[in-house]
């Protein structure tokens, strides 16, 4: 359903059958998509995110979890980027 961008249908289905959440490919996530899913009471997670720039672009969405091949390197890269931004 996500592939067809039928977000309201996905959200309604999830609510109807009692799903607690959905995992959506990161390139399909936008603020309206996340808002619609959250309005249906669904948690929203995504993956697979292996680059700090991509991670940074997703942070405003306040996702419930992000899946990555390399959690330690991604976290370190993110923290380096944040420190550099503060120093600049």
């Amino acid at each position, binding site marked *: 359903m996500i592939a067809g961008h039928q977000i309201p249908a*996905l959200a309604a*289905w*999830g609510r109807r*059958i*009692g*799903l*607690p*959440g*959905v*995992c*959506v490919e990161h390139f399909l996530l936008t603020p309206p998509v996340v808002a619609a899913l959250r309005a249906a009471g*669904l*948690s929203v*997670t995504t*993956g*697979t995110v*292996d680059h700090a720039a991509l*991670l940074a672009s997703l*942070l405003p969405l*306040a*996702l*419930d*979890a*992000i*899946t*990555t*091949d*390399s*959690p*330690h*390197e*991604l*976290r370190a890269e*993110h923290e380096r980027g944040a420190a550099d931004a503060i120093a600049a």
Partner: protein
Amino acid sequence: VLPPLYAHRLGRAYGPDSSRAALAGALRGPLGGLETDCCLTADGELVLLHDPLLDLCTTLSGWSHERRAAEITAGCLRHRGGTPSEERPLLLDELLELAPRDLVVQLEVKAHGDPALARRTARAVCERLRDHPARDRIELVSFWTEACHLAAQLGFAAGSS
């Protein structure tokens, strides 16, 4: 704020997909959860493989649901590039023994082109975990709506992917 980071395929940067080596690498630092895939075997066990077609990720051939767990765990996982490793496929029970008690474990139900198999696999996962201490930190995920629906009916944290 950084959301919880889950180690994909138990940490595929650190070893073959869903292997002990991958898990050991993922557990070397702070982590929000573990993500892996599970396939049903012919004798009702749950093996952690990304692909139900064994040729794709192990040194074996055929479909996971047509082989017994002992046969599958006697094979070896392949590295990302396809070369064989010395790592044996893990069973779900083994992962639950190895995973720290405070970590979420996200299990993706796999069943290639077979919704009935997806449903059987989801049922097997739910039955296996029904009275398990880890039950409340297991998230069941699947591309198969049948699997999600069944898990939700059985009271598990399920999500569509």
